[in-house]
């Protein structure tokens, strides 16, 4: 079906079709509508889900963990301060290997308070052990959320699917939806790897560990993340075969003979496509690499893709405050570090707090990257 939906509407609609067993969530701008719309599905009996309108995001994630440990397919949604408040519980969800799936309408972090889109929230949760997907369009958000359920349940890791706050969450796009049965058949039933409610076989979930075991648990979790790429690629492949929409960990745009490329995540990829097209018309050899899967960071794929370019501009919609460049930049440079010949890599920070990022801005960056010279370590785009 072809529908006009905002990002929030599309993700709520995907949730309806996924029909999770339990949803526990708390409203926060700009993701509120996801929860709000989903609760109307519950009220109208359009889903089987039990919905828990908790009293905070911290309790949202705690309740999600409880329900998932009790064998349920569980989803939630949040953003910004809400994700920050959940922070403690994110690590616990991942450590307990619970495939909870969460939508995030990306938003800046206070202070100062700002409700608009940047990647501060998800990136601050980078090391929590969650799979992280960043979407360029509403369509991609819808498709990715459905895929994320399958991926999380295969990798036994929780997954976060981010759409840029307001830019995607509140803007309407034409999307092609799947039918309920297509979604249901794609996902299949949830098979938990343990179930607290199986009282015939009592288990202890979340024990204390000392110096003698903690490291092994964490090592196992790390390995789970390392291997999650298999689940991701399998889900992308099956999704493509079934529905004709193909996704990859990274997408190259006009990169074939490119000398300079931009690497980035999220909705600004669309902006960069326009910039690339304009500069291509002028004969410049430029392109764009979109990173869709931020966790796991697939080093081999990134390295194989990026090694051939002369210059790379990495665009971060977040700053890591006195880190050596933005967070995506430092990851990209570390991926490229052991190459005998490395591209020049430059760090740009853009769009904090929803600051407009235009095709002209993107073209300016591309031209500078193509020129190959840069004075400052980090360039802040469009800041006064």
């Amino acid at each position, binding site marked *: 079906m072809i529908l006009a939906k905002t990002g929030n509407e599309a993700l709520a609609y995907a949730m309806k079709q996924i029909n999770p067993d*339990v949803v526990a969530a708390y409203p926060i701008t700009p993701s509120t509508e996801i929860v709000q719309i989903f609760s109307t599905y519950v009220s109208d009996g359009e889903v089987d889900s039990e919905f828990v309108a908790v009293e905070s995001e911290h309790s949202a994630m*705690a309740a999600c963990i*409880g329900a998932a*440990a009790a064998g349920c397919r569980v989803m939630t949604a949040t953003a910004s301060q809400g994700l920050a408040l959940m922070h403690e519980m994110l690590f616990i969800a991942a450590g307990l290997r619970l495939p909870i799936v969460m939508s995030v309408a990306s938003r800046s972090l206070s202070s100062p308070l700002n409700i608009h889109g940047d990647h501060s929230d998800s990136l601050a949760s980078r090391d929590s052990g969650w799979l992280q997907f960043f979407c360029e369009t509403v369509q991609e958000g819808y498709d990715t959320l459905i895929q994320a359920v399958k991926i999380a349940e295969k990798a036994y890791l929780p997954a976060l699917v981010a759409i840029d706050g307001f830019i995607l969450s509140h803007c309407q796009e034409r999307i092609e939806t799947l039918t309920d049965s297509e979604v249901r058949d794609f996902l299949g039933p949830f098979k938990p790897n343990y179930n607290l409610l199986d009282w015939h076989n009592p288990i*202890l979930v979340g024990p204390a560990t000392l110096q003698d075991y903690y490291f092994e648990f964490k090592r196992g979790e790390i390995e789970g993340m390392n291997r999650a790429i298999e689940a991701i690629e399998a889900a992308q492949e099956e999704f493509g075969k079934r529905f004709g929409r193909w996704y990859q960990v990274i997408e190259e745009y006009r990169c074939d003979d490119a000398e300079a490329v931009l690497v980035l995540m999220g909705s600004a990829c669309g902006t960069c496509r326009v910039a690339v097209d304009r500069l291509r018309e002028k004969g410049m050899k430029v392109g764009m690499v979109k990173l869709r899967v931020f966790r796991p960071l697939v080093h081999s794929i990134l390295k194989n893709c990026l090694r051939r370019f002369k210059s790379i501009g990495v665009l971060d919609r977040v700053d890591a405050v006195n880190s050596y460049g933005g967070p995506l930049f430092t990851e990209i440079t570390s991926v490229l570090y052991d190459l005998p010949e490395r591209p020049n890599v430059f760090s740009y920070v853009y769009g904090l707090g929803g600051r407009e990022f235009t095709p002209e801005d993107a073209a300016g960056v591309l031209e500078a990257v193509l020129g190959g010279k840069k004075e400052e370590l980090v360039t802040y785009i469009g800041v006064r």
Partner: protein
Amino acid sequence: MLKLADLTKNAELFSQGHRACAGCGEALAVRQILLAAQGIPVVTAMATGCLEIFSSIYPHSAWQVPMIHTAFETAASTAAGIETAYRFFRKTGKIKEEIRIIAFAGDGGTYDIGLQALSGALERRHRFLYVCTNNEAYMNTGIQRSSATPYGADTTTSPAGKVLPGKVQHRKNIMEIVIAHDVPYAAQTTIFFWRDLMSKVQKALATDGPTFLNVLVPCPLGWRHPSSETVKLSKLAADTCYWPIYEFENGQYKMNYKPQKRLPIEEFLKPQGRFRHLFQKTEGKEVISELQRYIDEQWQLLLKKEAAFAHREG
């Protein structure tokens, strides 16, 4: 009525071999609670704290029932998730039998850091029993004051010093906070009254809706009393009216234990190191008399509430 002879036949769902201190009141409470929770399967959750540490250090577990630990402030919210999952599986027919959910947390996890999650879960009417095993301070991290710590107690963050006599505030009335959520059942007791505790557990588990149990559990380490005195102190707490044994059921208060001879608060304080300073300085007398005044006031208030409801009934 519960009989010891019958209870000995019950399965020990909280098994021996855990790492609690000798004379730990909390371990006794949990054992008694699970001895009472027989017949209907229970699934449990607990907060970070002493209980979690002494019962669950991997690869050992004292739990013969399903148990989950997530974080310090999340006993109620995690239990809410489990209860929701249970309702989902009941609704969809995937679970046929009745299961009860019990959450355990200490006073830190209940009165302080977990209060919001508890309030939310009570308001949403999840059917679960929340047990606060209350030893009146953050014992697991080394005896720091909580909002359940009594006035005048010496803790590591309310130390008795040259100027201050230990904690300078009275404890929070968590029972009234819980009751203000219109719960169908809330009760307070302590381990000496094992029959009272166990019948309260059974009553709570049979009640539809959120229920609450505040159990005083003396802590030899934090209260600084000999391990052998734990149970005796829990009795003294009731005999001095320091710890009223009562319940709130369907809008009515009921005192379950009225000491025939009320003992002065000193009887409860004296055996405990956390109050020793009160007996060493002359200023301590004022603190003790303020504590006595507060306890008398609270006791009278409870009697009035009981009487008011009894009168209304009549």
